């Protein structure tokens, strides 16, 4: 080698070796910073205009504090208001004609991050802004139930009165509030431009952390708000890194380059691998409200018969699926509501793996064995069912393969015909374009009620412009009556009784095959204290991040 080149190369190699030492930078940041990795980048941070859960994770729990929020036990707590209104205390009143009045008292020490007072006037203005048809609000379902929100006493801007047009059992769970002084001028100019408003990407919030920067495609940095009335966050900076590929995100967790993850798209195998490879990380398996199931098209001649649907349920070994694919961590579902939901019914009819019973039910339904081992209906037609799911989802595709084998033993030929997620959810389910069965998950909340999923008027049709989420097309008068009563029932005990009854009917009729309840999978560094994942959509790992701290 040339004598002049050699020293240059030596210096370059030395510089590279020294320079690649990243840990000092990471160690330095870990003292006053927590890095949270996500497999999504938010579209914006005004959640009434945006759809991505990543935005809700950053906005709902770090940048904003809600009037009423959930904790890790799925209990509501008064956050920016003094108390949760109740019927007993009289601040939730039932009025004649099915109307209601709910009164909130705002805490007086909350301020927006620009120092301006946070009051009930912000909440009442936000309601007006969101209900305006020219504002790009995603959903006005709850807004439409409200007649008005007002601040009745000009001298008391901390009292909010909400007049409801109809009964709604969760009327005391608070309302979204945005800073009127930041948005009003542009709103008055043109409500249609609000999604492009600076507030959507750089919001002035009232939560424990305030915005510092959003480097598109890379990260969002938040800083502890020093006037947060419930206690200034212990960790000075919160960084949300966007790493879209879950394998790469997993590598970052193992390499300690992120301290916690949320919306990570991890599989259970990946979580186990993280625990195995890096003992400094905790993998949180939190029971959630994610119901994996198979919708059945009840307009199909074969599947109209509930004995056929019950036979399908008996032919799938869901316990084995849960053990083999999820190491027993994801519990088998027997109804559509999970154990942690207030309305869960443990005594519904269960369909354990029983191929003999499945064959018997199919014989009763008029099916007879064919020469190839597959059943034939009364017309001699081969019993072949099509199942669809999201193409490329490895877990669902594995479940399909196992189901195919198991159902064949009872004489059902299962044909797999998958679609990309955009097609499956954009068209196939919404327009009921699945001939027999479709496998996917519903992400629910404690506020979720059966009406939108199971009521007859929620069957999407061309006539109702494909409104509703009753994709199986289940029609049942008793179920409909219960659904409508549940929707209006304020008394929790009565509502729970009705929910349990509704599940009994549901489990008997079986418009869908319940598979299992998915877990909410998150990770956090063991040195990070007070991390308490809730497992709820809308209540993310950082719901109490002001209480997080680094243990020495």
């Amino acid at each position, binding site marked *: 080698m040339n004598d002049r080149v050699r020293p240059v190369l030596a210096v370059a190699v030395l510089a590279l070796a020294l320079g690649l030492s*990243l840990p000092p930078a990471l160690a330095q940041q870990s003292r006053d*910073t927590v890095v949270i990795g996500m497999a999504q980048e938010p579209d914006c941070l005004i959640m009434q*205009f945006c759809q991505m859960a990543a935005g809700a994770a950053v906005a709902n729990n770090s940048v904003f504090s809600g009037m009423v929020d959930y904790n890790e036990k799925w209990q509501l707590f008064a956050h920016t208001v003094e108390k949760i209104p109740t019927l007993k205390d009289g601040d939730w009143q039932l009025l004649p004609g099915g109307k209601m009045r709910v009164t909130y008292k705002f805490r007086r020490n909350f301020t927006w991050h620009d120092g301006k007072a946070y009051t009930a006037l912000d909440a009442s203005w936000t309601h007006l802004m969101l209900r305006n048809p020219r504002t790009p609000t995603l959903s006005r379902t709850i807004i439409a139930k409200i007649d008005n929100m007002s601040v009745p006493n000009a001298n008391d801007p901390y009292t909010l009165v909400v007049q409801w047009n109809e009964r709604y059992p969760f009327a005391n769970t608070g309302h979204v509030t945005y800073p009127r002084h930041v948005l009003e001028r542009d709103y008055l100019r043109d409500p249609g431009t609000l999604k492009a408003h600076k507030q959507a*990407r750089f919001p002035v919030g009232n939560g424990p952390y305030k915005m510092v920067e959003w480097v598109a495609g*890379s*990260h969002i940095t938040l800083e502890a708000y020093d006037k947060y009335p419930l206690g200034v966050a212990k960790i000075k900076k919160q960084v949300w890194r966007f790493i*879209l590929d879950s394998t790469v995100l997993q*590598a970052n967790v193992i390499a300690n380059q992120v301290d916690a993850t949320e919306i990570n798209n991890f599989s259970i195998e990946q979580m186990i691998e993280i625990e195995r490879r890096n003992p400094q990380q905790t993998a949180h398996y939190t029971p959630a409200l994610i119901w994996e199931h198979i919708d059945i098209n009840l307009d199909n001649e074969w599947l109209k018969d509930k004995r056929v649907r019950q036979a399908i349920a008996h032919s799938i070994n869901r316990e084995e699926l849960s053990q083999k694919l999820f190491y027993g961590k994801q519990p088998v579902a027997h109804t559509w509501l999970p154990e942690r939901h207030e309305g869960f019914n443990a005594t519904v009819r269960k369909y354990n793996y029983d191929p003999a019973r499945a064959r018997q039910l199919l014989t009763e339904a008029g099916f007879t064995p064919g020469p190839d081992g597959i059943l034939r209906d009364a017309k001699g037609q081969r019993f072949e069912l099509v199942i669809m799911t999201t193409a490329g989802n490895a877990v669902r595709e594995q479940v399909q393969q196992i189901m195919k084998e198991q159902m064949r033993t009872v004489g059902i030929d299962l044909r797999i015909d998958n*679609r990309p997620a*955009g097609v499956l959810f954009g068209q196939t389910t919404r327009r009921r374009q699945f001939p027999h069965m479709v496998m996917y998950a519903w992400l629910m909340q404690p506020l979720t009620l059966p009406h939108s999923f199971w009521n007859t008027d929620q069957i999407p049709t061309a006539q109702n412009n494909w409104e509703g989420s009753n994709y199986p097309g289940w029609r049942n008068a008793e179920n409909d009556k219960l659904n409508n009563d549940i929707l209006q029932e304020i008394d929790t005990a009565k509502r729970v009784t009705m929910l349990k009854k509704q599940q009994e009917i549901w489990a008997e009729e079986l418009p869908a095959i319940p598979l299992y309840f998915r877990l909410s999978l998150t990770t956090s560094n063991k040195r990070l204290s007070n991390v308490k994942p809730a497992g709820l959509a809308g209540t993310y790992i950082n719901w109490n991040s002001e209480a997080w701290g680094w243990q020495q």
Partner: protein
Amino acid sequence: MQRFLVRRLFQGVIILIGLSMLMFTLLVFTPGDPVELIATSNPDVRPEDVALLRKYYGLDDPFHVRYVKWMRSVLKGDLGYSRTYGTPVAKIIVERLGNTMTLLATAVVLAFVVGATAGIYSALHQYSFADYAVTISAFAGHSVPVFWQGIVFILLFAVWKPWAVIPGMEWLQLPAGGMLTPGVAPGWPALWDRVTHMVLPVLVLATFNTAAWARYMRSSMLEVVRQDYVRTARAKGNSEKVVINRHALRNALIPIITLIALSVPTILNGSVLTETVFSWPGMGLLLFQAVLGHDYNVAMAVLLFLALMTVVFNLLADVAYAMVDPRIRYE
């Protein structure tokens, strides 16, 4: 040459218009309308909300009207608004373009330096161990999928770190993605932090072309060293260094220059996968996110940019060829 340039520019415009129509059609008719997806993921979204959102995002017009509206605003220099980010598309593109160009330029330079050097060395030492090593490495580099290579590099340099078994070497690692470490002090620490973040994506982006260019350089050099004028140069008594550098190398580089110009759009397209794997906030990652999120304006702008780059660099390749090789004349 001028006539040739005018003709090629005109052809380029026609190609771009045709491509824009094709891309717009493909994007719009990709199943899964963005508003339908919102409605499906949220059972509380009512049909009247869906109708308002469709109107708000301009999705209620027929396909051809939407294309004409889009084209008209593009011709006025307005790329529209991003449905996802609520900001002007041009602003997003400008933010991301610099990041992609940094990766691209570094990868091209690295691939050229390493590829050309390896190719020349290989040609001048034909059938040696080094020649076989370069050939095998080139085939391997050409065959490895970018996505797989990226993940393996991350695992190797950020997770497994096989050198960590050597006492005192545990600290040596590379970032597992991203463009910078948030919170790093500005100035030199930030610059160095950026460089360390670039190492793996640049290596991955450069691998394919390093391999390809090494092979081309080798065969080009082998062809040139057998030419009469190289033999003449040797016969004149020139040293081997002068013969190779002044006579052989200059001529062997001519096809490589064309090849580099033609490869730039390929590398740019390759950045979609590389940037996605390494979470590098460039145009490739932006395209990936835009297609997933049905953000038509952003996806169209990035695709159009990629098409424009392909047309421009094809033209540049032709021009460069004529400029470096006096035997070429375009009529």
